[in-house]
């Protein structure tokens, strides 16, 4: 039994959305992926979800994984969400990374490396380009292989084979992405000479830490929601 009795009161549906975001900043990246725009005045989480046709249990689930370190959903909380909605959120996150976050980082990186000797700066931009390719490849694999497989798995009455074996693949690739990003952060933080774009570098690092945090939450979504969800379905079928 998890003994955090105050868990259910944190991030409750009745909470004002603005209060939730003021307390948990990382929710800011979640909202656009669910199609909830800013400028919502005093509305509550519940009201906004209804207005934008977002499933309230889904919002609560995602928000808690993002914001509460110790949160693991119960079977009941999982069952209130549809797998297709969860997958859609993950696909929207991928799109956000590829279309917004990564180009932003790339642009920023090119600007801040400008004062540096070309011989050195291309090393870093090449490293970044490789990283980006790795991320794109991984997302494509999830969207073209794993997600369709899961959609099929949930639609089938009788499972023909186990889906759990996918989870180790998930995990390894996310770890690789986080490691590479961490390498890049360390290069920028520790080994680029002090005189190269000091102010821009601070901004860049803050952006990269935020991105790294978001990617970590993204992989938590898969560890704490997707995988337990599949296990839950499997165990039901075996009963």
């Amino acid at each position, binding site marked *: *039994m*998890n*003994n*955090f009795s105050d868990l259910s009161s944190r991030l409750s549906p009745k909470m004002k959305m603005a209060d939730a975001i003021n307390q948990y900043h990382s929710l800011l990246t979640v909202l656009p992926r669910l199609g909830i725009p800013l400028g919502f005045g005093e509305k509550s989480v519940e009201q906004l979800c209804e207005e934008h046709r977002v499933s309230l249990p889904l919002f609560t689930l995602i928000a808690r994984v993002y914001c509460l*370190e*110790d949160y*693991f959903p119960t079977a009941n909380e999982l069952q209130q969400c549809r797998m297709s909605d969860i997958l859609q959120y993950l696909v929207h996150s991928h799109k956000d990374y590829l279309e917004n976050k990564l180009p932003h980082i790339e642009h920023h990186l090119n600007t801040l490396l400008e004062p540096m000797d070309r*011989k*050195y700066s291309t*090393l*870093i931009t090449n*490293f970044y380009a*490789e990283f980006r390719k790795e991320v794109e490849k991984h997302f494509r694999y999830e969207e073209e292989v794993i997600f369709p497989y899961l959609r099929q798995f949930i639609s089938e009455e009788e499972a023909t084979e186990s889906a759990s074996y996918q989870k180790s693949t998930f995990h390894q690739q996310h770890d690789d992405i986080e*490691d*590479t990003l*961490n*390498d*890049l952060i*360390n*290069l920028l933080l*520790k*080994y*680029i000479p002090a005189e190269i774009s000091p102010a821009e570098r601070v901004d860049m690092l803050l952006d990269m830490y935020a991105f790294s945090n978001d990617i970590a939450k993204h992989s938590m979504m898969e*560890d*704490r929601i997707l995988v337990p969800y599949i296990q839950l379905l499997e165990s039901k079928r075996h009963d």
Partner: protein
Amino acid sequence: MTKIAIAEPSSMLRIGLEQMLRELPEAEIIFSTDNLNSLYSRINAIRPDVLIVNPLLFDYAKRATLRAEFEQLSNLRLVGLVSSYLESQHQRQFAGIIELNDDFQRIKSTIHQVVNTIHADDEEADTAPLSDREKDVLVCLSKGLKNNEIADQLNISVHTVITHRKNIVRKTGIKSVAALTVYAILNNLIEEKDII
């Protein structure tokens, strides 16, 4: 911040302990449970630094090999929450012991001691620059050599190469060979033309 998990079957003890630990500024309780199943299912994901656990949760046969139960978490410190007699060879597995009669001061100092051993490990030699030998290994890595080839070239054992590599990663915070190569060039350890 030290992340603490608690596994104690008695809710009276567990809640009491949580209450006390909340007063320690450097500690954060990230998980608390009364049974082993939920501990096992979550411990690898939440990766606490310290696990305060009552040995009574385990079958008698397992109590002598508790460490092995958590071997995937090599940095995890175990603290025994001892509510009945525990044989001394079982006690030795714990980095610290909390007993029922301990007062708050005593519990505080037990936790402090355990936490300090974590940070002592973290800081050990971390601020030292790369040694000459580590630089040699790094240069070989950047040239694309494998562990056994590096061992041959530097006349050291493969085991030693691996130790040097671990130290390089620990000191620089960089894991991939690609990024280590960038590091080597930025620090003029190697010229770009030397890389295949």
